[in-house]
């Protein structure tokens, strides 16, 4: 490598490869197909995974810890203690933030109700969502027109409402909903904000899986408590904490669980749900496809490798004399070994690059046919390429070793 021997080997291998283009092409065919199939397979799961990530971002991110009510009475009659329990409250959210206020990036509250909703144009029984804290941001909603609820709105249980696009279409078909009045139950509320429409299709042509989110009719949690099904304890249905730092999540979740239990008279009437952990677990089930793709790539690389060994052994016969000459003028067996290895690895390297290009084309066709945008991880390139090089190396060993063990005398005399 240092006096140019390496360079010389690479150069000679290149010449050898170019001069025997047909043979080289045949030899690298296995590598090309192997790399293409590994990359093609990986890119499909990469693309699907990427699509899921986009979905989670649109859902408001994965870095969330949900706390929900949960039934504590499994069977029989509840005990007095259980009866007296207050459940999840606004207070829990406040104390939760106090545990580690530097890690908590946002809190949202939810308290649901059902009510009759009326406008001059429509009259429907609807789910009403009482929201508090940073609900819109944490759930991936964005204001299109008007405004979010202010602290003042929430503190004073102001009669205001924010509508999703479907709700706007249902109750104000003419479109100009902002500032108009809607009656929820017996309470007149003013429309202060309209949300952006939320759309996500996993594949082109699939239905919008966010359609139901556009049905939202949101009012302050405090208004739900005051006018619909509230009580003096400020109970809520769901508290969500956003924890940006992944490593802080486990600690926070443990501390939160302890605190909630203490607050809830030592009863676990709540359920913690680490959204990120749940999704990661689901995704790991998709890894089995990666293994299948890897396996099919493996098989074609093995097939290609065996073909390669055969061709290499056949061409070795033609080159025995050349090996003999090199040995006669002083090439040790190791040098001959290195020359053959360089040739095989160069072939593998070039074949792999062609394979990657074909693999990309292949993936494009497949992802286009299932309607998902193409995405390939750098990791997939590296593993497809790495795999091919490892196989190329292993299968090159035998012919190279054979060549290096030739006796110079017999090699020179070989006709």
């Amino acid at each position: 490598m240092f006096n140019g021997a390496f360079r010389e080997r690479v150069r000679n291998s290149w010449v050898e490869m170019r001069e025997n283009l047909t043979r080289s092409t045949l030899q690298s065919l296995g590598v090309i197909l192997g790399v293409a199939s590994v990359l093609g397979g990986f890119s499909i799961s990469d693309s699907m995974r990427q699509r899921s990530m986009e979905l989670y971002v649109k859902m408001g991110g994965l870095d969330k810890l949900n706390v929900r009510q949960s039934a504590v009475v499994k069977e029989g009659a509840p005990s007095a203690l259980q009866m007296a329990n207050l459940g999840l409250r606004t207070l829990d959210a406040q104390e939760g933030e106090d545990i580690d206020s530097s890690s908590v990036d946002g809190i949202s509250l939810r308290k649901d109700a059902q009510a009759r909703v009326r406008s001059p144009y429509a009259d429907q029984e609807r789910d009403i969502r009482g929201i508090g804290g940073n609900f819109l941001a944490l759930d991936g909603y964005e204001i299109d027109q008007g405004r979010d609820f202010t602290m003042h709105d929430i503190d004073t249980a102001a009669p205001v409402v924010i509508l999703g696009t479907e709700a706007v279409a249902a109750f104000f078909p003419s479109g100009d909903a902002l500032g108009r009045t809607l009656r929820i139950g017996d309470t007149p509320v003013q429309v202060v904000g309209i949300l952006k429409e939320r759309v996500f299709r996993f594949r082109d042509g699939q239905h919008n899986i966010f359609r139901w989110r556009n049905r939202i009719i949101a009012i302050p949690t405090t208004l739900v408590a005051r006018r619909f099904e509230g009580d003096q304890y400020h109970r809520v249905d769901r508290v969500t904490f956003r924890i940006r730092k992944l490593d802080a999540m486990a600690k926070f979740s443990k501390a939160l669980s302890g605190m909630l239990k203490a607050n809830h008279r030592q009863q676990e009437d709540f359920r913690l749900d680490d959204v990120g952990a749940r999704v990661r677990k689901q995704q790991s089930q998709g890894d089995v496809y990666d293994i299948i793709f890897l396996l099919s790539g493996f098989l074609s690389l093995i097939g290609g490798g065996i073909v390669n060994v055969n061709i290499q052994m056949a061409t070795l016969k033609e080159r025995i004399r050349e090996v003999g000459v090199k040995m006669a003028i002083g090439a040790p067996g190791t040098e001959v070994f290195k020359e053959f290895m360089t040739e095989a690895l160069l072939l593998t390297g070039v074949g792999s690059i062609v394979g990657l290009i074909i693999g990309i084309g292949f993936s494009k066709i497949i992802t286009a046919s299932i309607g998902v945008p193409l995405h390939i991880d750098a990791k997939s390139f590296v593993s497809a390429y790495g795999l091919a090089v490892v196989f190329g190396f292993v299968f090159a060993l035998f012919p190279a070793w054979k060549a290096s063990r030739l006796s110079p005398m017999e090699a020179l005399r070989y006709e």
Partner: protein
Amino acid sequence: MSTTQQTVGAAARAADVWKVYGAGEAQVIALRGVSVSLEQGKYTAIMGPSGSGKSTLMAILGCLDKPTNGTYALDGERVEGLSGRELAAIRNDKIGFVFQQYNLLPKASVVRNVELPMLYAGVSRKERRQRAQELLERVGIPEKAKVLPAALSGGQRQRVAIARALTNRPALLLADEPTGALDQKTGHEVLELFVDLHRQGNTIIIVTHDLSIAAMAQRQVEIMDGLIKLSEAA
């Protein structure tokens, strides 16, 4: 130390060398106890009909093969016990081969062919190029450096092979029927080159079955049925 003393003054010394190929029924005894000493700076011809064992002797003198029995010392160094790697280093450093069929690498340019032994010896690129060019001048074809061997005539190819053999300043220049594939005129030119090289101090061994070629050497060694039949100095 006795071996060193034994070989003083001799570029190569073979003592009671046997070479046996195969075993049992198929056994072939190529050399049956050959002893020969080749002095530094001498021009020696080894003669013999085909099958006489001269190629085997040449292979042993050139460290391409090891004797089955007996000793061989080159430039004061015994070779029987050496590994394949060490033999390769000796071939690279101390021996220059010239073959009947030239044995140039067809895909490498002339200058690269000449550089090859230096590449194995670990000589730097710059020095390789320079020395290869000098050697091509010495054999009379400096203008052919960049062409492929296929573009050369037989005589020119053999000159390239001679240049290649000289690269590492060998202790022994071994030529196996170097004019066997050439017409008389070019063959004669090549032989004159050998005489020149001898005059410049190279130790040369030429293997031939042609008496007139052998007559140009200082000493003739004749081999027959694996034994030295005649060894005389001119």
